[in-house]
């Protein structure tokens, strides 16, 4: 008997016939960790999508588009509401820098982000109770002067932080520029009313017909409140300094729109209307003129062509569709007429420096062109009206002098919106004012809590390069267009021109989002890993985990990540978490003995549920 007296040492104990018990799914095959083969480790590192980056208030656009894709509209709405108090408004009026920045624009067509935002905003409007709650009261009072986009935003964020907020609005109705600067057929009043209502539901007090400098003084503000946000906007229209500008029939853009918006307009337009200016307000005025009964509307711009006009291209397109004529490269030097405007004298003109900025170079030597009109609407920007402000806080541009945090010196006064942004290079747009209001609110909070204000130092990795993503996964797909009322009929009514997305359209359009640089739980890394050593306790954005004990560093996951949120980091940058073995062939004595031990209990192991 050859086997008599033989004994297999413990460390060489082998299971019966080499039949090896299966590893558990939870632990993997722990006898043989392969992580030490790796030179490069895949790491999930979300980048900033260009849309989020471009947005004036840094809405988490990729985030809510992703939620819309998944049908989680309420979550998407809640996510927007972190940065944007009134998506129903910006979903209609925003000049959408996000869409200009959208990486998909380089691939086929940009995502119709604004339309999706509007879809979500309208969804929020329909809710009985908003998803946003006021913060736990901290006992501090803040006044916000002005209820335009910046004031609205600042008040909203402060209320969420727990402040007792009072808005002081000089007009009879809250809304500021949103109400007075945007026509009904772009933003119906009831939409804005509902958003103002939401502010009140947060416990914010809105005092209308309350003007700073008249009803409330600087000192009152200082005395009665712990802090104050000045978001008074630019109210007074700019003049074109033309001869005879004071004639009857000469109107100014913002007051023209505001009076109509407030329902206090007494204007009766003639058949021929000229609009001077090339921006969004000018466009709104031209289109509003049609709706106010004008037959021929002409827009006169210094800009040499359509591309130079500081306007939202779609709005320009829609305006032209409605039949407004354009005259470029002209400035009006005189308003002619006997008491009432009858014609304009136009001269060739161009910007002497940067486009869309004064000064303007007018060729006064040229023979003036006479342009017959019944009314002229001047829409070339606004300026501030700040006679109540202590002189030390005024700057040379005639606006409020605030530091980069929006703070006035070392006071508890802050300023936000157009009143500080004018001339800063930032387009004076609703979303930028909202962003400013938000940032100022957070800065104010920090100051009141005694924290130092520090500029952001961590560099942001914005993903602009399509090569950082894997475009194989994205078929070309056309942008979903919003429906518009037909130009012929719409130009005679106050009906909203652009129609909302249906749910299907919103989802289909959100589906076009690449989720640039951001995990969207597509499961591709999880699926293509050869080990597989990518775990996810549940399928959700950013919950994927590399099991570093096993990952061999093949980088298939990185290559195949559609959105580019995975990247390779040299293993030398890490010093923990990897099981190191002397050689690939070494095993620890006893491991197989342990395996044999497991085998003994194999029959007792609960059967898999099949």
């Amino acid at each position, binding site marked *: 008997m050859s086997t008599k007296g033989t004994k297999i040492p413990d460390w060489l104990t082998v299971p019966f*016939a080499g039949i090896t018990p299966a590893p558990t799914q939870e632990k993997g095959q722990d006898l043989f960790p392969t992580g030490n083969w790796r030179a490069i480790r895949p790491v999930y590192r979300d980048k900033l999508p260009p849309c989020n980056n471009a947005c004036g208030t840094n809405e988490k656009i990729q985030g809510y588009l992703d939620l819309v894709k998944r049908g989680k509209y309420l979550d998407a709405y809640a996510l927007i509401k972190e940065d944007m108090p009134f998506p129903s408004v910006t979903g209609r009026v925003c000049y959408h820098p996000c869409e200009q920045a959208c990486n998909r624009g380089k691939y086929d067509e940009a995502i119709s982000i604004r339309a999706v935002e509007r879809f979500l905003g309208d969804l929020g409007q329909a809710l009985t109770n908003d998803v946003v709650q006021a913060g736990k009261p901290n006992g501090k009072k803040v006044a916000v002067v002005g209820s335009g986009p910046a004031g609205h935003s600042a008040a909203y964020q402060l209320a969420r932080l727990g402040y007792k907020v009072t808005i002081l609005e000089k007009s009879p109705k809250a809304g500021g520029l949103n109400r007075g600067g945007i026509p009904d057929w772009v933003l119906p009043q009831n939409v804005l009313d509902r958003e103002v209502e939401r502010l009140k539901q947060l416990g914010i007090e809105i005092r209308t017909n309350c003007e700073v400098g008249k009803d409330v003084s600087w000192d009152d503000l200082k005395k009665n409140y712990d802090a104050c946000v000045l978001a008074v906007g630019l109210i007074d229209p700019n003049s074109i300094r033309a001869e005879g500008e004071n004639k009857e029939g000469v109107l100014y853009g913002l007051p023209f729109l505001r009076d109509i918006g407030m329902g206090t307009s007494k204007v009766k337009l003639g058949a021929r209307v000229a609009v001077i200016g090339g921006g969004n307000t000018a466009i709104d005025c031209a289109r509003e003129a049609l709706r106010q009964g004008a037959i021929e509307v002409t827009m006169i711009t210094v800009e040499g062509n359509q591309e130079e006009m500081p306007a939202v291209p779609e709005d320009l397109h829609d305006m032209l569709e409605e039949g407004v004529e354009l005259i470029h490269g002209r400035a009006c030097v005189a308003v002619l007429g006997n008491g009432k405007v009858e014609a304009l004298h136009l001269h060739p003109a161009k910007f002497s420096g940067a486009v869309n900025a004064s000064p303007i170079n007018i060729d006064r030597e040229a023979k003036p062109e006479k342009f017959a009109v019944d009314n002229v609407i001047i829409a070339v920007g606004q300026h501030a009206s700040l006679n109540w402000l202590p002189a030390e806080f005024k700057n040379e541009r005639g606006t409020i002098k605030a530091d980069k945090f929006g703070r006035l010196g070392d006071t508890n006064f802050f300023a936000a919106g157009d009143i500080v942004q004018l001339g800063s290079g930032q387009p004076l747009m609703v979303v930028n004012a909202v962003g400013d209001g938000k940032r100022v609110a957070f800065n104010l909070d920090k100051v009141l809590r005694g924290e130092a204000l520090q500029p952001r130092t961590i560099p942001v990795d914005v993903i602009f390069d399509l090569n950082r993503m894997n475009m194989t996964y994205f078929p070309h797909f056309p942008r979903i267009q919003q429906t518009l009322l037909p130009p012929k009929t719409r130009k005679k009514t106050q009906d909203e021109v652009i129609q909302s997305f249906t749910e299907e359209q919103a989802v289909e359009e959100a589906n076009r989002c690449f989720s640039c640089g951001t995990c969207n739980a597509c499961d591709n890394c999880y699926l293509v890993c050869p080990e597989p050593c990518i775990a996810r306790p549940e399928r959700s954005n950013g919950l994927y985990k590399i099991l570093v004990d096993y990952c061999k560093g093949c980088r298939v996951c990185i290559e195949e990540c559609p959105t580019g949120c995975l990247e390779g980091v040299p293993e030398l940058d890490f010093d923990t978490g990897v099981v190191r073995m002397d050689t690939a062939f070494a095993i620890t004595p006893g491991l197989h003995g342990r395996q044999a031990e497991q085998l003994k209990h194999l029959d007792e192991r609960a059967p898999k549920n099949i």
Partner: protein
Amino acid sequence: MPVAEAKKRMVRINGCVASAQAAKYADVDVIAAYPIRPYTATMMALAQMVANGELDAEYIVADSEHSQLSIAHGAASAGARVFTGSSGVGVQFAYELYSPISGSRMPVQMMIADRTLDPPGDFGSEHTDALSTRDMGWIMGWSCDAQEAFDNHLIAYRIGEDRRVLLPQMVCQDGFFVSHITGDVELPDGGQVREFLPPYKHPYPLDPRRPVSHGPQIMPEQGPPLQLERARAMEESMAVIEQAHEEFGKIFGRKYDPWLEEYKTDDAEVVFFLQGAHAVTARFAIQHMRERGIKVGMVRLRTIRPYPTERVQDSLSKFKVVGVIETNMALGSVSSGGALYAEAAAALYEADKRPLMMSFMAGMGGEAIVLKEFYWMTEKMIEAQKKGKIEKRTHWVGFEH
């Protein structure tokens, strides 16, 4: 008629059909067939049983013997009782699988009806086909008639499937002499078989409920422990083999010595040492010679793997001369004859008293060993006994004077 209801009865069948009947009584689950003479008659019989509904089994016509054995391996690994078989070169076509099957400890059963290896193409029986696999870890033995063939199949399942053993079995019978000659066979009652042979249950089958991996790669140092375990299983099977034969005798009434059949050896001075069907003619020849006063006997090896070394030593050392009837070829081997000589001689090496030994190349090509050849061989043994030494180690019977 389903086996379970079968009542004990006598039938006249040949060895191949007896094997088929045994498989039926064992209620095998999977049968892997491939035609080659002469064993193929077993598969023909099983095919008919399945077609008739007498046996519920998957009857697979494989594409080769290699596939036959692989199918058997797979089916046994999944937990099924398996039956397969072959003859001659077919046994060798499947050669790759013998070690993997025994190494994975799967009690596959294989029926062999011996056939000479090519060339030339000869249907006759030589044991070389099965004997060539004798060191692959299979329990192996020969029967000498249809009844013993039937019995050996049941006994082999019982041994191989025993948890202490778990090894495949090769149940051999001579082509033609057993496989195609009819004899009286007692078919048992189904209840007897159920009592003797419990259902097959491998401890670690391929079962999704208790997942295991069969046959993974190993490190060089993990090889020896596995080999040692297999060697141990083979050695420890000896006790199981004895126990199985004893129980078989109790239940079925036919008692076999698991290792050796001794025929008229009590006062024999010279004996034949052989295995398989030639024992039948040898018994007749011995009787004939005994009647003429020649003290000759026979020792028949019933189980060659595991080899009953002690038993062979004890038995053969009693005689003066042992003549090994090979019926197999081991070209260039120690006796320059067959394979049986070397192992018997080795078994005797440590005996106090060693007989003289010679090897007879008889029954080759499937020829019967006739009476005068037994006489001739006995003369050679007596001659050596008289001279007290072996002058020629191996004799080609029929080719010498």
